């Protein structure tokens, strides 16, 4: 415990270094804007901005991106409330009560509650993170290749069991991400493989940013252009100091459900497939269930804004736990952060705590500071953000497209990758319209090289015996959990069928039953 406190103090000091502090303020502000833009969320912001962070050292870069991540979680609420359009999928639940409040002229109340709840969620989760991360990393130090592989199988299994999307399409998405990661020179034998059309551009592989920016930058913009058509209606927000103080005092009406939602959000966030969106929906449901007045939910209950906002911020911190300690991202956004860490020459995983404590604790310290700054910037600039939201999409779209194109060029500096990015963007958009989930593919392309290496190393050490994965206790547990998760949808379908059958025979007494 004491060592944690000392390391944390060091991390906090590091967060207050001028460059890092500047990165936090800049990241929070950019994140707030990105989150507030309808259609753009943390994952889009982090994917598009990652190439720009090559400008600063790794610690400052991840601090910037983590601040963007935080800011975007706060910002999502702004458009949910003022436009009635969720700024990102993570803020969907905020619309339920945020929109009715805005219609009733209480937008300022909803915005303040969202900001304060986000702060509570962020604070609770970052404390949990500090407590859980070091022991988990210590435990993970025992992992060998079989455990690593089993853990990755478990991460992918969460998409199948909890993702809620069409299962064959989810598995397809995971597999195509893994195959794309295999393009280029084989990591073990050095042989070139999957060099399509003999294009030399494939020799250096498919950079994960090409897929991530393609899908979350270009694909997402096309999607948003189609769905919004560029037309939005903004609600007027009136802010006054007296009203603000009253709003602050009303915290006690929702503090309990918010704290509960934060803890829930944190743990849901650590699961790769779950993350901030389901966490916020679950937290909303929880607040409604335990409320004294559940009927007022959906009609403008302030707790209905606070609970999901606390949970989505908590989940964003939660998703960093497996990324930092195990090297397995807890969300698409952290998958991109993980890919960035590899570019910066860091090896994510349990060794990070012992090899680069400055990096890890600098990040943790910056989470505390970012949380504080985001709530201050958010509260101070709510009127400005609301003004920016009136920007037509025909201004925003070309700016984002340009950032995507140059951002796709930067990592490898070949036009081949830019063309590939455009192709992935259009394909991703077309497939997403048919319910193919895209997040698993992004996670898979980041984890792909590691998954292949750990599988081949395990098989090599066991002389081709696949039983190695079930003979070692930790990997056996992971595989068993993964199997349970994969069978879970089948179980649900079976139960639904049985219930339907029981319902049928119940409603027709005397029939075949």
């Amino acid at each position, binding site marked *: 415990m004491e060592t944690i406190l000392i390391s944390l103090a060091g991390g906090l000091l590091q967060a207050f270094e001028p460059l890092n502090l500047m990165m936090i303020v800049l990241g929070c502000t950019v994140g707030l804007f990105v989150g507030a833009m309808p259609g753009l969320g943390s994952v889009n912001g982090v994917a598009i901005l990652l190439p*720009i962070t*090559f*400008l600063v050292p790794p610690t400052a870069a991840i601090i910037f991106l983590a601040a963007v991540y935080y800011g975007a979680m706060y910002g999502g609420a702004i458009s949910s409330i003022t436009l009635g359009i969720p700024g990102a999928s993570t803020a969907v639940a905020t619309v339920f009560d945020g929109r009715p409040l805005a219609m009733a002229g209480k937008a300022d109340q909803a915005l303040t509650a969202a900001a304060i709840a986000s702060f509570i969620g962020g604070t609770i989760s970052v404390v949990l993170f500090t407590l859980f991360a070091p022991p988990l990393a210590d435990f993970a130090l025992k992992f060998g290749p079989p455990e690593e592989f089993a853990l990755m199988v478990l991460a992918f299994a969460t998409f199948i069991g909890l993702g809620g999307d*069409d299962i*064959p*399409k989810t*598995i*397809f998405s995971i*597999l*195509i991400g*893994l*195959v794309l990661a*295999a393009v280029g020179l*084989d990591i*073990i*034998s050095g*042989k070139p*493989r*999957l060099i*399509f059309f003999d294009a030399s551009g494939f020799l250096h592989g498919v950079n994960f940013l090409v897929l991530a920016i393609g899908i979350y930058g*270009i694909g997402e*913009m*096309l999607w948003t*252009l*189609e769905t919004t*058509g560029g037309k939005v209606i903004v609600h007027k927000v009136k802010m006054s100091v007296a009203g603000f103080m009253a709003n602050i005092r009303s915290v006690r009406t929702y503090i309990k459900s918010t704290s509960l939602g934060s803890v829930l959000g944190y743990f849901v966030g650590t699961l790769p497939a779950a993350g901030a969106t389901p966490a916020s929906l679950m937290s909303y449901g929880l607040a409604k269930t335990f409320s004294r007045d559940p009927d007022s939910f959906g009609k403008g209950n302030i707790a209905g804004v606070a609970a999901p906002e606390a949970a989505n911020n908590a989940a964003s911190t939660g998703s960093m736990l497996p990324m930092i300690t195990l090297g397995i991202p807890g969300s698409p956004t952290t998958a991109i952060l993980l890919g960035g860490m590899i570019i910066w020459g860091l090896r994510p995983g349990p060794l990070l705590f012992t090899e680069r404590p400055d990096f890890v604790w600098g990040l943790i310290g910056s989470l505390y500071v970012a949380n504080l700054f985001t709530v201050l910037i958010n509260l101070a600039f709510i009127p400005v953000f609301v003004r920016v939201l009136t920007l*037509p999409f*025909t*201004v925003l*779209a*070309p*700016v984002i*497209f*340009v950032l995507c*194109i*140059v951002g796709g*060029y*930067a990592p490898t*500096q070949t*036009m081949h990758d*830019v*063309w590939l990015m*455009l192709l992935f963007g*259009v394909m991703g*958009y*077309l*497939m997403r*319209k*048919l*319910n*193919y989930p895209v997040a698993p593919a992004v996670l898979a392309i980041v984890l792909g090289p590691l998954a*292949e290496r750990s*599988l*081949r190393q395990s*098989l*090599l050490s066991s002389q*081709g015996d696949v039983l190695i994965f079930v003979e070692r206790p930790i990997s056996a547990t992971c595989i068993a959990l993964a199997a349970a998760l994969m069978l879970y949808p089948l179980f649900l379908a079976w139960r639904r069928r049985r219930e339907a059958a029981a319902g049928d025979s119940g409603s027709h007494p005397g029939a075949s039953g």
Partner: protein
Amino acid sequence: MTVRQADFLMAIATILMSLGLMWSSTDGLAIGWVSGKGPGSGFWPFWLAVGMLLCSLATLVRWFLRHTPESRSTEIYMSRSAVVVVGTSVGALIALLVGIHIVGTYFALLAFLLFYLKVIGRHEWPLTVMLVGGIPVFIFSLFEWALQIPLPKALTEEWFYPVFDIMYETDYFWMYILGSFLFLGAVSLALHKFLPGQDR
């Protein structure tokens, strides 16, 4: 085209993609066990592609049985307005990339932004000038100056030599950048003054 038809076509496309990947993984690579070396180079992508094929076949079977919402939907996959807005954007992006190969990033960006803001967005001249000029200047200072990543310039490479001379010779290049933004701002203001509400 309805969603149902699109779902069928996509399943066929993913089957072909999987077969292509399987074929490509066996191309001169071992997909099985190589004695003494463990799994061959093609082992991992080949069996993943087999998995992709199985998933695509499962999607196709479910399409025939009408098990998924997409396979039942008779809604239009892309409405006419969606085709127009998405098609124009994708077309403009393709033109931008072709332009980068011919006239280089910066001049292609000028044309792309001008098209997007003026033709699609129909924005006023002051805003258009500010963005069409400002974004390439911003990208230039970010990439060429700060990150030192040269973006492709193709035929216009030589036109940038004078700028590079200034950039490498002075420590005050940021003043030039600031100056260009001020100049663009002044032009926008002037346009705003002399073309009042001309194309609203």
